[in-house]
């Protein structure tokens, strides 16, 4: 089975080649994989043995992923496949979110003067790209150079914001040693946890501005991770197979022979496939469906803290919402524990800041900072001059203008329920919340464009492990896409400038707490909750770890119960 590559036409993908390529890229790349795999499999015996059908595991999701091109695909599914499935990062996080070696065997840092540090990685010598080419320090340097080259348009360029960009920031000492220079800052290893290394020998000739659109990522990814690419049918499935040459020290060849990522956009169909056993892992199951699955003997629902954050951004540029008393009153009027219970079955954490529970700076003691308190909300609104003057249940200011705010959001079941609950709860304190549902692209345009065509917006984020809220709340970012609230506060600015540079976590926790208290005071946004993630897993699978790092974090160690290997 190891000989079969290509599937849906890596061969023949000729129209995407950047100028200067004489040989069709994907033809050549996949031929090299086939040649290497064929030679080596004959020698070592890869895939399932004795002609038995391959053990296949199917993960089902509602959304297609962007692919294996680090420079072009940044959605959650794609990034996890880059990090854990098809490619490798220099470091990864353990279950306590501490960096541990992966492609890098070890690393060291030293001060090099002028307020700079040097980070030196020593790479493993037993990792090969799936076409047989060794993975070296030159690949790491190539990835860094392209990521920091402005022409690439790397969406995650901010990962390396404290690294010296370009040639100045990196040097290859030998094929297994590479060093980087940067301004001291916290979590300096995180970019190397989040950015998978790309194959220099395949992509070096691609102009940086063409990298994001290169067919490498979706048609012929040649990785170095535990699973190698077999085929991709857009909007349908990705097929990977075990890499028999994955280093033993990192777990060796994965126990499962094949892994399929299936896209099933309708959640009812996805649930049906999961219940029937044709999907082994159901990613991001809604609460309602999880209730149907619970109690079944051969299925389990794994619930774990996630990095998602849901909040209402108030457009403080508008006179009504410029008054912090009004914004605080809105927050006090919302019964967020009840909201979480109603929408997510209570599976999550009520938030008062953008620090999710999985982050080291999360402070549970801040959870009670703005508890549900309608009387205090009413008092605050009255002190701000909003009184129900005509007895219609909605407050008015002295000019007789009603306290009405329009909440913009794009429709999905969760947002719809949240919006309706918010509307009902704010009504209780005399606030009219009007709901404005938009199609996603239009919604994004409305809330991120300089015109800020919204009053309040329901926003969901998936935060990075290295938290940086400058583009949300720094006054310099008020005109940038994510400066939704338009808040401008010198105290916040100081915290936001300082926090990313703090290396000591104890000091960091203190500063993060002070920063969060300031956010709670100003309330540029009303944080609602961080919902836990729910994944369904069949009992056919063993050794599956699902946690805040992601669904695929240990896919290389997943096992199928021997009696339940799937027959084709």
């Amino acid at each position, binding site marked *: 089975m190891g000989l079969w590559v290509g599937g849906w036409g890596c061969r023949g993908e000729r129209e995407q080649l950047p100028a200067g390529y004489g040989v069709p890229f994907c033809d050549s790349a996949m031929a090299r994989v086939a040649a290497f795999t064929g030679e080596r499999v004959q020698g070592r015996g890869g895939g399932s043995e004795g002609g038995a059908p391959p053990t296949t595991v199917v993960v089902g999701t509602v959304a297609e992923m962007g692919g294996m091109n680090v420079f072009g695909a940044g959605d959650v599914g794609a990034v996890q496949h880059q990090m854990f499935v098809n490619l490798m990062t220099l470091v990864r996080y353990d279950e306590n979110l501490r960096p541990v070696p992966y492609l890098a065997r070890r690393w060291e840092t030293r001060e090099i003067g002028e307020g700079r540090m040097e980070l030196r990685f020593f790479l493993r010598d037993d990792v090969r790209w799936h076409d047989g080419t060794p993975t070296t320090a030159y690949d790491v340097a190539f990835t860094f150079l392209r990521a920091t080259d402005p022409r690439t348009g790397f*969406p995650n360029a901010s990962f390396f914001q404290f690294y010296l960009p370009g040639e100045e920031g990196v040097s290859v000492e030998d094929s297994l040693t590479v060093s980087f220079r940067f301004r001291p800052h916290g979590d300096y290893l995180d970019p190397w946890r989040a950015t998978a290394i790309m194959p220099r020998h395949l992509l070096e000739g691609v102009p940086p*501005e063409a990298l994001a659109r290169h067919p490498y990522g979706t048609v012929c990814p040649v990785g170095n991770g535990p699973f190698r690419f077999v085929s991709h049918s857009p909007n349908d499935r990705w097929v990977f197979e075990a890499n028999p040459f994955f280093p033993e020290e990192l777990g060796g060849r994965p126990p499962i022979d094949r892994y399929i990522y299936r896209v099933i956009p309708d959640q009812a169909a996805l649930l049906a496939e999961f219940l029937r056993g044709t999907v082994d892992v159901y990613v991001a199951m809604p609460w309602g469906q999880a209730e149907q699955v619970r109690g079944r003997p051969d299925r389990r629902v794994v619930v774990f803290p996630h990095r998602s954050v849901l909040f209402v951004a108030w457009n403080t540029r508008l006179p009504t919402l410029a008054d912090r008393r009004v914004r605080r009153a809105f927050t006090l009027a919302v019964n967020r524990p009840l909201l979480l219970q109603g929408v997510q079955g209570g599976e999550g954490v009520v938030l008062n800041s953008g620090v999710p529970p999985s982050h080291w700076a999360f402070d549970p003691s801040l959870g009670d900072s703005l508890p549900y308190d309608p009387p205090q909300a009413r008092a605050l609104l009255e002190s701000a001059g909003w009184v129900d003057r005509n007895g219609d249940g909605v407050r008015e200011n002295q000019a007789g203008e009603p306290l009405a705010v329009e909440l913009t959001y794009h429709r999905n079941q969760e947002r719809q329920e949240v919006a309706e609950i918010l509307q009902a709860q704010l009504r209780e304190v005399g606030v009219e919340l009007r709901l404005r549902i938009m199609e996603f692209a239009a919604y994004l345009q409305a809330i991120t464009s300089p015109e800020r065509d919204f009053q309040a917006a329901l926003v969901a984020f998936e935060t990075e492990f290295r938290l940086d809220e400058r583009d949300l709340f720094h006054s310099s970012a008020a005109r940038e896409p994510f400066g939704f609230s338009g808040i401008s506060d010198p105290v916040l600015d100081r915290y936001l400038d300082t926090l990313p540079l703090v290396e000591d976590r104890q000091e960091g926790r203190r500063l993060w707490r002070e920063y969060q208290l300031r956010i709670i005071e100003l309330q540029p946004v009303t944080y609602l909750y961080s919902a836990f993630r729910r994944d369904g897993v069949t009992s056919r699978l063993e050794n599956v770890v699902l946690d805040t790092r992601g669904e695929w974090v240990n896919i290389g160690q997943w096992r199928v119960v021997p009696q339940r290997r799937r027959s*084709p």
Partner: protein
Amino acid sequence: MDSGGSCRNGGGHLKELPLLSFVVRRLLGSLPLLVGVPTLVFLALSLAPGDVASVYLRPGIPPETVVQIRQNLGLDEPLHVRYVRWLSSLARGDLGYSVAHGVSVRRLLATALPNTLLLGSLSLGLSFALGILTGIFQALRPHTVLDSFLSGVSLFFYSVPPFWLGTMLVLMFGVWLGSSAEGLWTLPVSGMFSVGHEFLGPWEKAFDRLRHLVLPTLTLTAVLTGGVARFVRAAMLEVLGEDYILAARARGLSETRVVLKHAFRNALIPLITLGGLSLPLLLSGTVVVEFIFAWPGIGRLMVTSVAARDIPVVLAGTVLMAFLVVAGNLLADLLYGLADPRIRHGRPQA
């Protein structure tokens, strides 16, 4: 029936033209449609809020990176430049690149189009076959209990939204009637083939594909059949009341011959029109069904592409649909000649 009459008139006018010339002229005449419709779509999508660069928007992205991404994608160019570039690429057969899917549009269409054509043509063929049979059956027993019952059933399926019917079928065959993939009553509820299909033999593969086709085809067919049946019933009832049918029966022809050769053939003209108009349904009619049954076809592709403002994909799909509209109408015109001897495009005149 009006459409049939007007077609007869059209056919009369076209008698003068040789067949090839007729086809060429019709195709040339369709060029404005083939270019005009995508142009309107291009304008509408370009003027709609948001663009495909939003795929890359995320917290922390520097503003200059957003600018660079838009530049790399060619989104920073004026509307007319992008339009002319698209047109010239189209003329060269280059359909462009899908940012949202990360592959060339040609590859996307090459993957999705056959899937949709398979599902659409099977459903269309089945629904016409079943609809014609049902319609004829009803027309021969007008106003009976059976006719009323079948009318009710046709109306029910004609009225049922495909998303509801599809979801019910998913629940019925995917959950209620079988809890395992191998159950007797269990049919696949998503995708085009099973896990491990590539390890099956040719016959097993074909059977596997057929099983996956059952539910989406059933959904589409059920919805389309009702309309066709009602259409045929009405056309047949009208024809069966004509004098020449009475004359045929008076001449002692068998009922089968009367119905099939005389009545049905004359009822065929409006049905051909319906068939021609239904051809674009091959692509557009499958959207909801493809979504529910995870069928990786054009309909689903178009929906996700519109949502992502992935203009090249939408434009290519629109061109395809416009082409099918043209082809459907042309095909109907040509079939009129087969159904009605008085209409012969390009036949040498005596």
